[in-house]
C-alpha cells in the first residue's frame, strides 16, 4: 500500500487533473484577493493591462506580474500585507545579511496551511507519530525552528525544543530522551558528529534514525558523510522565508534528492532565467512560485532564483504531486572567472570524487595580478597525508588537474589542515570574492 505513508493521502495522491483543477480554482481566487487588497499588486496588474478575471487557465499565470525580493524590501514591513494586522498572528523574517530583512506575516489560516505542509514533509522523511524529534535549529525569526516545530506537533510526534548550540547538551538529550529525529542544519549535524566522536559518543548504537535538514544547502556529499558517521537517513526539504519557510517541498524516500511540491498550495513554474520563457518539463530553470492559499502575505510569481528541474512523472511512493530536483545552484551564485561560468557545486562534485580530501572547501577569488585567480582551499584528510613533499605535491597537482578538467580553468589548490575550514552554524560561506572591480 504505497499510500499509507502520506500525511494527507487524499490530497497527496489525487489524480493530476484534480490537482490542476484545484490549482486553477485557487489561482483565480488568489489573483482577486491580491488585486483587491494590495495596492502595489493592483498597480502591477494595471501596468501589464491584466485583470484577475483574465485568468482562465493555469497557463494564464504567465500574464500575472512577477514578485522579487526587492518588492518585499520596498514594501517593508507591511506594505504587501493583505489583511488587517489584527489578523496577523505571527511574523517571521529572513536573516537580512544584505540590507533590511524581509518580513512575512501569517494569519491563523496561513499557520494552519503551513504546519500541514511541514507535517507532510516530515512524514515523507519517514517520521511517524511514535518518533521523538530533537530540535537543533534556533527558534526566533528564522522560519525553520517554529516551522518544523509546529509541523511535528501537527503530526503528533514528541518534540524536544532544545534549540541551537550547546552540542554536549544535545548529545546528552539524544542519549537520555532516546530521540529518533534530529532537526538541524547539515553543518551543525557535522559539528555534532565531530564533537560526539571526540567525546566517544556511540553513533552506531544511538537512538537517532532520521535527520531533517534545512537552513542551508545540504550537498550530496555532506549528506553521505553525515549518513555514514551518524548512521541515520538524512533528508532535506525546500522552502524559503518569502513563501512561508520550510514546507514548499519535501524529500521523498522513494526518489532521493527529489522533493514533492505541495501543489495544492504552491503553483510552480520553471523559467529560463535569460528569457523568462517556460522551460520544457524536466529541464533546468529558475523556480517561480505562486502561493495559492495565503491570506496575509500572498505572493504571485515569486522569483526564487533557485535552479531546479520539475517532473510530473508518477513516483514510486504513490504521491502524485510533482517532484523538483534538489536545488544545487542559484541563478545568482554563478561565478564568472576569466569569462568562464563556474558554479561552486562543480568544485564540490570534483572534490567528492577524490579520495583523501574532505567535503569542506572554500573558494577565494582575487585579481591582484590583473587577472582573475581562483584559489580552492581543500581540507586534507589525515589518511591521505604522507611524509613526503613529492607525494603531497603530486596529490595537489592531481586535484588541480581534476578541477581543470571540470571547470575549464586552472585553479590554485591549497591543501589545509583537517578541520580548519570553518563549519558555520548558519549558511556555509564557501566563496570569498576579493576581486577589485573597476
Amino acid at each position, binding site marked *: 500500500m504505497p499510500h499509507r505513508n502520506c500525511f494527507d493521502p487524499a490530497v497527496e495522491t489525487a489524480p493530476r487533473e484534480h490537482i490542476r483543477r484545484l490549482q486553477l480554482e485557487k489561482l483565480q481566487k488568489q489573483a482577486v484577493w491580491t488585486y483587491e487588497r494590495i495596492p502595489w499588486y493592483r498597480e502591477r496588474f494595471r501596468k501589464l493591462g491584466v485583470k484577475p478575471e483574465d485568468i482562465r487557465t493555469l497557463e494564464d499565470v504567465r500574464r500575472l506580474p512577477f514578485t522579487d525580493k526587492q518588492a518585499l524590501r520596498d514594501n517593508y514591513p507591511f506594505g504587501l500585507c493583505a489583511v488587517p494586522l489584527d489578523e496577523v498572528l505571527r511574523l517571521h523574517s529572513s536573516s537580512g545579511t544584505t540590507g533590511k530583512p524581509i518580513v512575512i506575516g501569517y494569519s491563523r489560516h496561513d499557520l494552519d496551511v503551513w504546519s500541514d505542509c511541514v507535517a507532510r514533509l516530515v512524514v515523507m522523511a519517514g517520521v511517524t507519530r511514535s518518533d521523538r524529534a530533537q530540535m537543533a535549529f534556533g527558534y526566533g525569526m528564522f522560519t525553520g525552528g517554529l516551522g518544523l516545530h509546529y509541523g511535528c506537533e501537527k503530526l503528533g510526534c514528541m518534540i524536544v525544543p532544545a534549540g541551537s548550540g550547546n552540542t554536549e547538551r544535545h548529545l546528552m538529550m539524544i542519549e537520555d530522551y532516546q530521540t529518533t529525529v534530529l532537526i538541524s542544519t547539515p553543518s551543525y549535524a557535522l559539528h555534532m558528529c*565531530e564533537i560526539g566522536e*571526540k567525546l566517544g559518543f556511540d553513533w552506531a548504537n544511538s537512538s537517532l534514525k532520521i535527520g531533517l535538514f534545512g537552513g542551508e544547502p545540504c550537498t550530496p556529499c555532506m549528506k553521505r558523510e553525515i549518513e555514514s558517521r551518524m548512521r541515520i537517513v538524512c533528508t532535506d526539504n525546500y522552502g524559503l522565508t518569502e513563501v512561508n519557510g520550510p514546507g514548499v517541498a519535501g524529500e521523498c524516500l522513494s526518489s532521493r534528492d527529489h522533493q514533492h511540491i505541495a501543489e495544492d498550495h504552491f503553483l510552480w513554474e520553471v523559467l529560463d532565467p535569460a528569457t523568462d520563457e517556460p522551460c520544457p518539463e524536466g529541464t533546468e530553470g529558475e523556480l517561480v512560485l505562486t502561493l495559492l492559499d495565503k491570506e496575509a502575505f500572498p505572493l504571485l510569481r515569486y522569483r526564487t532564483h533557485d535552479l531546479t528541474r520539475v517532473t510530473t512523472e508518477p513516483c514510486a511512493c504513490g504521491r502524485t504531486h510533482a517532484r523538483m530536483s534538489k536545488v544545487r545552484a542559484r541563478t545568482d551564485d554563478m561565478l564568472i572567472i576569466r569569462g568562464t561560468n563556474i558554479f561552486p557545486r562543480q568544485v564540490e562534485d570534483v572534490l567528492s570524487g577524490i579520495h583523501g580530501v574532505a567535503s569542506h572547501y572554500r573558494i577565494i577569488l582575487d585579481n591582484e595580478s590583473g587577472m582573475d585567480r581562483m584559489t580552492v582551499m581543500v581540507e*586534507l*584528510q*589525515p589518511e*591521505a*597525508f*604522507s*611524509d*613526503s*613533499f613529492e607525494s*603531497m*605535491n603530486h596529490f595537489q597537482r592531481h586535484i588541480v588537474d581534476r578541477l581543470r578538467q571540470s571547470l575549464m580553468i586552472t585553479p590554485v589548490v*591549497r*591543501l*589545509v*589542515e*583537517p*578541520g*580548519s575550514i570553518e563549519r558555520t552554524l548558519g549558511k556555509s560561506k564557501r566563496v570569498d570574492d576579493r576581486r577589485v572591480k573597476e
Partner: protein
Amino acid sequence: MAVSQISVFLENKPGHLLHILNIFETSGINVRGFSTADTGDYGIARFVVDKPALALEMLRAQSCAAKESEVLCIRLPDRLGELARVIRIFAAAGINVIYSYTLVSNIIAIHTNNHAATEASLKEHSIELVSQDEISAGA
C-alpha cells in the same frame, strides 16, 4: 634498529606548530629532535619523541594529519670530519639521503631511499645506531 618518527601536516601559519607542541606537552611527550620544512603554503613537521605511539594517538584524537614513519638515528663522535665520513659512506653505497636533522646531543636522524642498505653500510663501518629504547629512555 629504526626509530619511530611522527610527521604532521601543517599550514605555515603562526600558532600551528605550537598547537602540536601543546598536545605533546599536556600528554607528557618529550621531543628528542625535530625538523620543519615547507613549500610556501604548507609544511611537514617531523618529530622524534620518547613515546611515539602515544604521540600518534593524541594527534589523531585532535584530528591532526599525522603519520608514523621510520628514521635511522646515528650517534656521531663530536669530531672533525665525522659527518663527512658518514655521508661519504652513503655516496659510495649509492644511498640517497632524502632528509636529515639532528637530535639532542650528538645524534642525527636520517631518512634515506633504502634503510636496509643504509643500516648495512653503517654497520660495515662500525657507526653506532641508536635504538628506539635509547631514544625513549633519553639517550
